[in-house]
């Protein structure tokens, strides 16, 4: 297992923003790519 030590500083907003932005981007992209063929385009 890799060495794991906690960060001295607490969590910041930045990592939450990049995480949820990534999840949202992928969810929207997948929904779009599933929906387009279902509309018969």
């Amino acid at each position, binding site marked *: 297992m*890799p060495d794991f030590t906690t960060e001295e500083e*607490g969590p910041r907003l*930045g*990592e939450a923003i990049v995480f949820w932005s*990534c999840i949202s981007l992928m969810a929207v992209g*997948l929904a779009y790519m*599933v929906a387009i*063929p279902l509309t018969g385009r």
Partner: protein
Amino acid sequence: MRPIRDNALSLVFGALFVLAIAGQAIAGYLDENDSLDQHGMPLQTFGAYLTSSSFTVDVAENWQSEFLQFFLFILATIWLVQRGSPESKKPGDEGPGDDKEQLVGEYALAGSPKWAKVRGIRQVIYSNSLLLVMGALFLFSWLAQSLGGTNVANEENAEHGLPAITWLEYIATPDFWSRTLQNWQSEFLAVGAMITLSIYLRQRGSSESKPVGAPHHVTSASSD
């Protein structure tokens, strides 16, 4: 600008993704219209191309293989090792690890995620959340590829006066498996190359490499 520096890796790859998919959309649109022109058919608008199965199937077939790659890599590295590779745990460490190593339940830290501190189904879900999400992304991308591919195949069938096929018929066609496997083979080769090349090769300063002076047989910086 500390927030930028702290998240630089995600931001750079996010920007590269946007540039690459914009480039793919433009190149795909021009290619599609070239093909329509050669067949003497009316040209498409850019908006019509972006909302067509031709575009979505090309995007989805690459997405599914990338998420499958990470799904399998995460799964395989639980139980399999490669001596000398920084991508692997060291031999003898195979398996999911005990609660103390994993900092769960009574071994959780004050700052540990809430679902790591509790026992039961929530801890099981959170303990496997990365694998579960990668697996779901793979399955949805593969589904999107198959749905888009069915429409594209039916457009080509209509041009040639052939009958339309169902989704179930399409996923048994060579076209579906050719699109699928041509992506899988490259992903598996790339992962295998990363695992094996990093035994003997180094990149100073990269988290994907052992330290330059680490012996070849050492599996990671923390190995004995």
